[in-house]
């Protein structure tokens, strides 16, 4: 297990290094000089040069890359070109919207999908299964941002239960914040829950046909005991893969959903920063999101080994 963990840890570090180089290089080839962009078309050349020096743009890309990486390791993401405030602060404020949004959505999606998927699989071919699968077919097909728009129409505009958008800030109280994130989280979670429920069902159905399930039944376990003790654990590998994947879907989805609900999260920060040529903000936010997803993938790999001892031995 220690060796498996170590191998995964090394590849985690390599992935992070490669990702940072890719992001930095892509941002480097974006046309347009941030200093010239900030000062406008009438700026004097020496003013632009002075600003480039102030922003640290006058050194070589390699030096800048290492300064960027070194800074991030100590929690210093640099200073925003546009707002002249530390990027760490800007990300910090917005992270408290995007992260809870993605996590609530992930939790909702898992809480809905597990029981629904297990129920459908254990009653395969029944009316219950058909109805559940019908609903999940519909859930998979609905774009989350359109679903979000419809929810705004129904719950914000017609029923007035929730606000149509915006975020009051956590200072206004936990419940007020939670209320503002409810519609966005539900719009993110439902389509994901449908996908996860379908994967759960199909993984479980595959396992139910295995020989060890017949053996479990033959040694006297009833259907439910056999599913809980043997089938579920074996069905977890594809399910864990999808949960890991969903985290990146949710982060990306959060970017879109933040636009529907005008939530000042990381997604809106990226779009603003791109339009303002605030490259340091773009690369830092993207790197942070990629870091989060790589670490989650690492956790999924470790979870595989915990669920399936065969993988541990193979490593």
């Amino acid at each position: 297990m220690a060796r498996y963990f170590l191998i995964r840890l090394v590849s985690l570090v390599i992935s992070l290094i490669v990702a940072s180089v890719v992001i930095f290089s892509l941002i480097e080839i974006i046309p347009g000089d941030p200093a010239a962009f900030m000062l406008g078309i009438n700026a004097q050349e020496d003013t632009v040069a002075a600003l480039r020096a102030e922003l640290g743009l006058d050194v070589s890309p390699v030096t800048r890359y290492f300064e960027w990486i070194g800074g991030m390791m100590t929690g210093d993401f640099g200073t925003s070109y546009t707002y002249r405030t530390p990027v760490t602060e800007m990300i910090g404020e917005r992270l408290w919207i995007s992260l809870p949004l993605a996590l609530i959505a992930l939790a909702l999606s898992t809480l809905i999908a597990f029981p629904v998927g297990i129920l459908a699989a254990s009653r395969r071919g029944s009316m219950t299964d058909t109805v559940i699968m019908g609903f999940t077919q519909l859930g998979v097909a609905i774009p989350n941002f359109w679903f979000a728009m419809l929810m705004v129409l129904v719950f914000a505009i017609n029923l007035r239960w929730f606000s149509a958008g915006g975020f009051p800030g956590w200072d206004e109280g936990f419940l007020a914040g939670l209320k503002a994130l409810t519609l966005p989280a539900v719009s993110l979670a439902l389509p994901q829950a449908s996908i996860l429920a379908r994967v759960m069902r199909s993984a479980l159905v595959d396992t139910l046909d295995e020989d060890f399930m017949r053996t479990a039944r033959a040694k006297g376990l009833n259907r439910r005991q056999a599913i809980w003790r043997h089938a579920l654990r074996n069905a977890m590998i594809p399910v864990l893969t999808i949960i890991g994947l969903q985290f990146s879907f949710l982060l990306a989805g959060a970017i879109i959903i933040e636009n529907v609900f005008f939530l000042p999260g990381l997604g809106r920060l990226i779009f603003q920063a791109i339009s303002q040529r605030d490259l340091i903000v773009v690369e830092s936010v993207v790197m942070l999101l990629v870091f989060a997803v790589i670490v989650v993938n690492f956790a999924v790999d470790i979870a595989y080994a915990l669920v399936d001892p065969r993988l541990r031995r193979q490593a």
Partner: protein
Amino acid sequence: MNTYRNLVIGATLSGLFVIAALVSFLWVPYDIENLNIAERMRTPTPAHPLGTDHFGRDILSMVMIGARTSIAVAFVAVGIGMGLGVPLGLAAAAHKGSLLDEVIGRGNDLVFAFPSLLIAILITATFGPSAVNAIIAIGIFNVPVFARLTRGSALSLWKREFIMAARVSGKTTVRISIEHILPNLSNLLIVQGTIQFSLAILAEAALSYVGLGAQPPTPSWGRMLADSQTMISLAPHLALAPGLAIVFTVLGLNLLGDGLRDVFDPRLRRGRT
């Protein structure tokens, strides 16, 4: 019975939109480049079955042309993903534990680590928004999905007796991968393919919605939804038509995939009836 029901409903729904997309090359009810402000935001009438938008353009005509954009982007993107991902996954599984396997695995992790939308944002910020860049972004993201699925499922197959028999009979790794592993994965790949196709249509819609996909004046369903958002309380029908077009297309493709899988795999059909 259930088998053919899925197949028929799925083929009908997705076929309808493919036909609408093809017909739109030859004929649409109204020319969408003619703006008719006097007729704007009309609710459905016999002359405009789906109503008109804020510029007075016929929504049915726009949905038909939008179908082209969605289907074309999704088709090419999934093609890229499957074409590259499946061979990579087969190779990784056949040489489990080798350097090749490790490189493919880490490469997958790396692409997975970029949510597709972030790739699209970076590509768009660098090269400008367009449908082609949307295809590349969605396509790149599809590669590791197929590679990982193929590798994971192929690994368990490599342990099975019939593969050992094939090895003993002297078949090469490549032949075993193609002749024995791949056919046994086709069921999974069809299911994943339909999910990815529908996801690609959804992704294209999402990218167009935030302005990173097909650019105006090319109509796209996502763009139409973005335009309708500010007017949703005044004219909800503007948001309904493109939204339902996405839902029905995706639903149709998924049902079609399920139906095909049931027909191809008698084992599943027996399990269901």
